[in-house]
């Protein structure tokens, strides 16, 4: 079955079209400075999307990622305010993120609860903890050497460090998902969990690992976010989970699991990033940006369904 119109290819083409349209129609878009900024601005979403892709392929989801990001940011602020060294804070906070993910995973695998419900719960819980930790205040004045790492480009390139890290992790994730037995197991779990279990695949252990990974990555993204803005706040990253899931679904990963490619997700992430950047350049308010993200999410879920309904209907009529 060689389908030219593969969804992930389609999204890639759309990405190119949006880029071309932006270059022609929006002044200041196609400059190295702006694109470098746009990429950097995308860093956290892109990082979290990698772990989210693995989860959604296995037919699970983690909606608590933005709250873990916020909790991580709040912890960085509180601990820094308390005089702890940043070299100690970062691993500690990432560890807390791993525990947050582990809790999600235990609730899903040990108690058999649906991840959608569990992570809506922990979405509220972790964000609440972030406010407990830091309250309404903002902590700033992080060491310049570290904030620079979150903002500066890799010498000689227009690529910010977090984006370079993303590229590295994306390659690793791509190999894991598409070329290893672990990746194969994820697709099997997502498509037909019982059959995967009957084939000796350790379904629960793998899911637990994925949730823990998701929490870890989200906490790390929280560190990057905090340093990039130079500001630790409990409400950092509010709503980021929607952008991440929109990017993953837009990239062609089926919410029901078992389908999708990492290439598609990367195209989806970039597409969302470009659109946000274009809207920002066009001075469109954040409310409208949020509306666009929401619409994209619906369109990306709806379109494949429409196609699957329309295609046979077109074929069926003589």
């Amino acid at each position, binding site marked *: 079955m060689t389908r030219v119109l593969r969804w992930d290819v389609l999204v890639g083409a759309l990405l190119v079209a949006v880029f071309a349209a932006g270059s022609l129609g929006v002044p200041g878009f196609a400059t190295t400075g702006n694109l470098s900024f746009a990429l950097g601005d995308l860093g956290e979403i892109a990082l979290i999307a990698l772990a989210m892709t693995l989860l959604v392929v296995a037919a699970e989801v983690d909606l608590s990622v933005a709250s873990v990001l916020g909790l991580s940011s709040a912890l960085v602020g509180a601990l820094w305010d308390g005089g702890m060294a940043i070299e100690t804070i970062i691993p500690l906070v990432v560890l807390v993120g791993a525990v947050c993910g582990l809790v999600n995973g235990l609730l899903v695998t040990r108690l058999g609860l649906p991840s959608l419900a569990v992570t809506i719960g922990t979405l509220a819980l972790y964000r609440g903890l972030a406010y407990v930790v830091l309250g309404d205040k903002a902590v700033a004045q992080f060491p310049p050497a570290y904030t620079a790492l979150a903002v500066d480009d890799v010498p000689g390139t227009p690529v910010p460090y977090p984006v370079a890290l993303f590229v590295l992790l994306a390659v690793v994730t791509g190999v894991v998902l598409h070329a290893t037995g672990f990746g194969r197991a994820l697709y099997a779990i997502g498509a037909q969990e019982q*059959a995967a279990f*009957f084939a000796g695949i350790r379904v629960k252990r793998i899911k637990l690992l994925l949730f823990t990974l998701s929490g870890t990555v989200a906490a790390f993204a929280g560190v990057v976010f905090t340093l990039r803005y130079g500001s630790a706040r409990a409400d950092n990253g509010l709503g980021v989970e929607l952008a991440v899931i929109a990017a993953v679904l837009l990239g062609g990963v089926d919410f029901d699991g078992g389908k999708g490619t990492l290439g598609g997700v990367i195209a989806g992430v970039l597409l969302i990033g470009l659109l946000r950047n274009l809207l920002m350049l066009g001075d469109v308010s954040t409310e409208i940006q949020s509306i666009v993200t929401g619409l994209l999410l619906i369109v990306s879920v709806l379109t494949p369904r429409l196609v699957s309904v329309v295609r046979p209907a077109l074929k069926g009529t003589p």
Partner: protein
Amino acid sequence: MSAHPTLALAGVSKSFGAVRALRDVSIELHAGEAHALAGENGAGKSTLVKTLAGVHRPDQGRILLDGEPVVFTGPADAQQAGVAVIYQEPTLFPDLSVAENIVMGRQPRRSLGRIDRAAMRAAARELFGRLGVDLDPGRPTRGLSIADQQLVEIAKALSRDARVLVMDEPTAALSGAEAARLFSVVEALREHGCAVLFISHRLDEIFALCQRVTTLRDGQWIASELVAGLTHDDLVRRMVGRDLGALYPKQDAAVGDVALKVERLTREGVFTDVSFEVRRGEIVALAGLVGAGRSEVARAIFGIDRWDAGTVTVDGRELPPGSPTAAMGAGLALVPEDRRQQGLVMEMSIERNIGLTGLRSLRRGATISRRAERDRAADWAARLRLKFARLGDGVGVLSGGNQQKVVLAKWLATEPSVLIVDEPTRGIDVGTKAEVHRLLSELAGQGIAVLMISSDLPEVLGMADRVLVMREGRLSAEIPRAEATEESVMNAATRRAA
């Protein structure tokens, strides 16, 4: 018999891509006649049924209704013309009552558009009366046995004045008594002038129920003839195109060491105190009624469910409870009862399904070797004589028998020392069934210990060296091959506890 058949296909062909599912097939369904459709899996029976039901439109040829050509543009057209199809798994609304299901979409009305429940129940009762069955029209459909649900479907068809009743493997999930009741209903319908098309893998049923039989092989029409002059062997020969020889060719094999030892295994409320051994080279059958706990024992042994007490030992190594991964590592393999949910990932390709049990052994460095995966699949596909177009095709396009071969392939590729097969030939055509039997016999000959769960008594008697019988969660008998008969097994399976 009227001059024209009620419904007929004349020279119908239908292709799906490169696959020619039907080639120049004709069949005539007459009023008052039960007509059997015989053929192996993949012979084109389902395509023929779907053509009659208006789901598929023929590429060539015609559909004739009372001798007049008609075109069914969809299932609604076919229903309008009086064609009703009863599928193996009925599709009723579980939360509605039996009567509501029967009149669905055509409820009798009272004033102000209110549904007339009394009239609805009366209509349902009258229909059941005509069918000679006793079902409460007011009860909810949820909880009805599959057999009863089929009767509801038939009543629904009757209420729409169906003149042609197509039954696609209606007895596959029924007990003997339920099937007998279904047959008496079919007899009644036939006497009322209905034309019946009956599909079943159980040839005995064709001989018991039908007057005429049409045989398909590889999409081609082979014969339409009266059942009266045929023998069982004649029919099998038409279906497979050759003589089958012995259907159950278990060869005597050298019996070796104990490979699987189960001691006092108990899962509370499911099965109790089950102990047995299977030696290398042996095929041991686990017989019993549906619900006696056979599949549950197999699931526990393989680690799908936990056990509460007892031990399972494979080649001298004791297994931990509740771990399929550990069971696999110890040399166990389970070909499960439910192919589509448990045996296969339907969305994955043939080669990936076969590779799924070898995610470790197919590794070259950190990644899976696609070449090794393909070689493994190709090797086993050839050994099991799998019929397929490409190994990269989705396993869902294969016929049931070939899907079962893929499940066997994926487990045999792990080189198990103990193979558990749960209903290995259910829903599989005669030819493939014989192949599976030959394969199991060969595997035993190679020193594998085989534990076979089967509800097919001739299969149990033909294949097993020993028959273990379960009743109500306990082992009730162990019968050696020489003493195993239908009577001795059924007695042990049904005898009331003293």
